[in-house]
C-alpha cells in the first residue's frame, strides 16, 4: 500500500491530486505526504516570488530567499488581512484603477493590461477581471470590508476537483455522478466566494443549474456587502443622500433590508414547498448551523418532518453565532431533515482545500493543504501529538497567487495518524474559536473605547 501511495502524489502536478479518490489520499501517512508537500512548496515559492509583488516584499523584509523545510514558509505566510489592505475609500469613490493596482500586486496574472473603462460598481469590476481570466471572489470581514481572493481560471480544474472530493468525503454523496437536487438558503449568483463557487460548480453537476434551488433567485451585490458599514453609518447621521451612491444600489439595499425582516418565514415557506416536491428523493441540503437548526425546530414544533431519502446529504457549518441552540440540536435536525448524519467541514475562503469532518467528529486535511499550528509568537508548534494554537494553511493548489495564510482561528490539532475513523492525515478537533472572541471574554474594564464598542452596544440593545 505504502509504495502505491507514494507514487500517487506527483510533485510535478499537485493540481492533479484532488482527482485521486479521497480514500486513497486519506490512506497516506503524514511521513509519506510531507516530503512531497515540501517539494511542491519550495517550487511554489520559487515560481511566485518573482511575479507576486507582495510576496517579494514580505520575503525581502523577512530575509527569506529559499525554503528548505516545511516550517520555513511560516515567516512569509500572509496574514489574512493582506487580502483587504486597500483603503475602503477606493470602493466608495470607485477608484477601480487603484484597486486593480492593489490586486495586481497579489497575483501573477497581469491585471494592469485589463481595460477598466466604464466601470460603475464592484460587481462590474469583478466581472471585468473575470473576463480577463480571473475567478475573483471575496469573503466578508467582520467589519464588512471585503477580502479579495485573487484566484484565476488556472486554478479552476483543481479547485473544482477538490470541492467535489471534500463534498463526497464529508457526505458520501457525489452530485457530479448522480442527479441530486440541492437546496441552499442563499443567493443564486454573486461574487462572495461560497456563492460564486456553488454557481460555477453547478454547470459540472449532474442536476445542473436547474437542480439548484436557492432562497433568493437574484445576485448578492458585492457593492452592498462592501459598503454596508458605511451606509449604516451615513444613515445614522442622516447623510445617506450625501454619499453619492448609485440610487439603484440604495433600492437594492432597501429590498435586502425588507427581505431580512421576514427571512425566517420566507425560508420556512420555501423549504416546506421543496420538502413536499422532493419527498422520497435523495437531496443535498446546505446551510448555516444556526439557521438550519431554527428551521428544524420550527418544523418539529408544527409537527412536520421531511421525508427525503435517508441517504440524503445535510451539510452545515458556521457555528451558532450567538443563537442558543438546544443541547440535542444535532439529533433534532437529523429527525427533522430525515438524514442519517450531519456533514460538516472546516476551511477558509482563502484556501481551496477544505477539511471534511469524519465520523468521529474530526476535520481531516487532504495532502494539497499543508496545515500549520503557530504559538503566540507565530512560531510553528511541533508537528507531533496534540497541539493547540493558531491555524495557518498553505494551499498547494494556488498557482497564480501565494497560498500561505495565517488565520485568526484557535484550534486543536492532532498530528498523529490515529483517528478511530480510519482516515489518516492531520486533523482538527471540534473546538474551533476565533482569537478575537476569546480575548473578549475577560472582565477588563477600560476608559479607552472604540466605535465598535458603541456599535456592539447599539446592536445589543436593539436585539432585546
Amino acid at each position, binding site marked *: 500500500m505504502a509504495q502505491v501511495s507514494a507514487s500517487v502524489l506527483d510533485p510535478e502536478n499537485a493540481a492533479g491530486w484532488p482527482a485521486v479518490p479521497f480514500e486513497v489520499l486519506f490512506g497516506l501517512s503524514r511521513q509519506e505526504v510531507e516530503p512531497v508537500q515540501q517539494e511542491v512548496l519550495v517550487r511554489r515559492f520559487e515560481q511566485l516570488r518573482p511575479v507576486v509583488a507582495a510576496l517579494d516584499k514580505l520575503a525581502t523584509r523577512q530575509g527569506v530567499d529559499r525554503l528548505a523545510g516545511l516550517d520555513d514558509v511560516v515567516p512569509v505566510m500572509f496574514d489574512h488581512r493582506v487580502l483587504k489592505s486597500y483603503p475602503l475609500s477606493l470602493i466608495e469613490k470607485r477608484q477601480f484603477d487603484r484597486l486593480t493596482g492593489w490586486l495586481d500586486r497579489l497575483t501573477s496574472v497581469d491585471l494592469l493590461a485589463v481595460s477598466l473603462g466604464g466601470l460603475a460598481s464592484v460587481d462590474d469590476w469583478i466581472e471585468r477581471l473575470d473576463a480577463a481570466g480571473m475567478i475573483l471572489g471575496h469573503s466578508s470581514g467582520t467589519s464588512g470590508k471585503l477580502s479579495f481572493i485573487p484566484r484565476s481560471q488556472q486554478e479552476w480544474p483543481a479547485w473544482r476537483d477538490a470541492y467535489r472530493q471534500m463534498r463526497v468525503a464529508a457526505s458520501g454523496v457525489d452530485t457530479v455522478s448522480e442527479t441530486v437536487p440541492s437546496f441552499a438558503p442563499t443567493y443564486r449568483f454573486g461574487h462572495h466566494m461560497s456563492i460564486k463557487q456553488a454557481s460555477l460548480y453547478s454547470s459540472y453537476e449532474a442536476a445542473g443549474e436547474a437542480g439548484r434551488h436557492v432562497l433568493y433567485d437574484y445576485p448578492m451585490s458585492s457593492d452592498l456587502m462592501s459598503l454596508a458599514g458605511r451606509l449604516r453609518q451615513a444613515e445614522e447621521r442622516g447623510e445617506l443622500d450625501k454619499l453619492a451612491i448609485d440610487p439603484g444600489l440604495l433600492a437594492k439595499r432597501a429590498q435586502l433590508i425588507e427581505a431580512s425582516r421576514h427571512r425566517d418565514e420566507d425560508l420556512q415557506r420555501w423549504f416546506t414547498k421543496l420538502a413536499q416536491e422532493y419527498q422520497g428523493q435523495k437531496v443535498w441540503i446546505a446551510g448555516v448551523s444556526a439557521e438550519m437548526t431554527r428551521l428544524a425546530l420550527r418544523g418539529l414544533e408544527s409537527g412536520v418532518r421531511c421525508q427525503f431519502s435517508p441517504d440524503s446529504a445535510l451539510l452545515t457549518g458556521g457555528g451558532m453565532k450567538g443563537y442558543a441552540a438546544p443541547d440535542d440540536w444535532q439529533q433534532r435536525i437529523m429527525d427533522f431533515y430525515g438524514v442519517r448524519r450531519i456533514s460538516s467541514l472546516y476551511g477558509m475562503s482563502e484556501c481551496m482545500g477544505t477539511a471534511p469532518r469524519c465520523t468521529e467528529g474530526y476535520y481531516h486535511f487532504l495532502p494539497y493543504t499543508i496545515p500549520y499550528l503557530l504559538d503566540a509568537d507565530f512560531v510553528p508548534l511541533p508537528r507531533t501529538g496534540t497541539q493547540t494554537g493558531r491555524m495557518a494553511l498553505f494551499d498547494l493548489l494556488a498557482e497564480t497567487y501565494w497560498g500561505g495564510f495565517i488565520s485568526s482561528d484557535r484550534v486543536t490539532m492532532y498530528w498523529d495518524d490515529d483517528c478511530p475513523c480510519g482516515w489518516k492525515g492531520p486533523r482538527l478537533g471540534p473546538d474551533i474559536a476565533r482569537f*478575537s472572541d476569546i480575548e473578549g471574554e475577560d472582565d477588563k474594564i477600560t476608559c*479607552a473605547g472604540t466605535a465598535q*464598542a458603541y456599535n456592539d452596544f447599539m446592536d*445589543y440593545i436593539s436585539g432585546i
Partner: protein
Amino acid sequence: MTVLASRVGVTVFDIPFLIRGRVIEPGGDGVEFGGRVGARFRTPDARAYADQLVLADAGALQDLADTPIDEIIDFLAELGPRLALERNPLMQAAFGLALDAGELTEPILRDVYGQFPALFDRHRLELQVEKTVGKAYLDGWVEQGRAGRSTTRVRAIGTRNMHIIAGNVPMTAAVTVVRSALTKGDCLIKMPSNDPFTATAIVRSMIDVDPDHPVTRHFAVAYWKGGDEAVERQIYRPSRIEKLTAWGGMASMKHIQKYLVPGIELIAMNPKLSISIVGHEALEGPAAMQEAASGVAHMAGHMNQTACSATRVVYVECGTDEEDLERLEEFGQAIHEAFFQLPESESTIPKCPQPDLEEELGAISLEEEFYRVIGDAASAGVVVSRTEEPVDFADRLTNRIVNLVPVADIVRVTGWVSEETQTVGIYPESLRTKLRQDLALHGVQRTLPLGATAFVYTGEDADQTIGLPHDGTEPMRRMVRWVIDQSAAPA
C-alpha cells in the same frame, strides 16, 4: 495581603473584601479569578456577602449626612500621605498587581501611583467640592430666596452609589473614592480584573486610619465576575442602589443592562477616543514641524496611549500629491523620533507588542502605495495614510502608534468627530480657536494645544484645572440627590 503559592509556578494573591470598615479575607470558600494576562487572585465568595455590600436602609446614611464636609476633607487629607508608594505596602502590592495585569510599564505606572497622595491634597479637595457641589449644599439646606424672605431651600443629599470602575488607568480608583466621600455617599466599588487591587489598597488604608469613621463605614470594595447573576440580582436593585456609575461601555454595560430599571440612575462613563488636528503650518518649516511632532508624541505617548485621552489618529492639513505625501512622511519620521524623547515616567517602549497590532502593521506594510509604516509595534510607530482615510484598525492603536491622515480641507474633520471623541489636541493655536466650537457641537469634550495633555498642563494657575467637567458631564453633581425643601413661611 497574603500570597499563596497554590500551584507550582503560579502565584495566587489573596484579595479581601472590604465592607464598612471590616476586612474579610478569603477563607475556605475563596474564589479564584484572573490568570490569562495578569496574576491570579482569590477573593471571598461574593454570593455570601452580596447583601452586605449594599445598604438596604437609606436611613443608614444619617451618620455621613451629619458629618461636616470639612471633617470629611480632614479625614481624606490624612489618608493622602499614607498612600505614598514608598511607605505603603498595600499600594506597593496594588502597583505590583497592576504591573502584572495591565499594559503599563514600570516607570509609567510608578509615576501614576506617585500622583495618588496629591489627589487627596486638602487644597485640591476644598476646591473640588466648591467648584462642583458646594460645601454649603452638602452640609445643610441652602436658602434660594432673598435674605430673610426665603421659603425655598435646596440640599445635596448623599446617595447609595455603585461604581464599576476602569482598570486601564489606576487613577480611576482614587478618583472614585474621592468623589464618593466628598458627596457623602455610600459607595460600593466593583473592581476590574485588569486592576484588581488599587481600590482595595486605598480603602484598606482608610480602615487603618479609622475603621469607624463615617466615611470608612460607607465604603465597600469587592470583586465578582461580571455577569454572576446570583450576586448581581442582590445588588442591582433600586431599593439598594440609586446611582450606578459604569465605566468601560459595553464591557460593563452588557452585564448591567438588564438590571437598569427606573430608580437606578445610570452614570455612564463611556469609552472615548482622542485625536489631534495639525494645520498646514507644521509642514512648512523645520522648527514648526519639530514643535508639532513633539506635540503629537506627547498627545499619543502619554501613559503609552492606553488612556482615553491619548491621540490615536492625527489629521494633518495636507494634499495627497507625491510632494505633499513626502512631507507628511517626513513629519511622521519626526514624530517617530519624538516618541523616543519622551520622559520614561510618561512613555516607554511597551511591555510587549500587541500581537494583533503587529499583524495589522505587517499586513499594510506590504502595501506602500496606500500606507507607509515607520517604526513598529515593539517600540513606537507611525502609520502614514496616503489617502484621506484612517487605517481600519485606528481605534485599536495603542503603545504609541499613531496614524497620520492627510486632509486637504482640514475643517472637514469637525464632521468626523462625535460624542466618542474626548480630547482633541490642535496645532497651531489659531486653528484651535477656529475649530473649537464646531468640534464641541459635534460632541468633542476637550480641546487643547497640541502637546499639553491634561495632566501636565496647568499653566500659571494650577488651581484652574481642579474640579473640571469629566467627559462633558459633572459626575459629582450627578452623584448627589438635589432635594428641595419649602416652607409656608421664611425659616
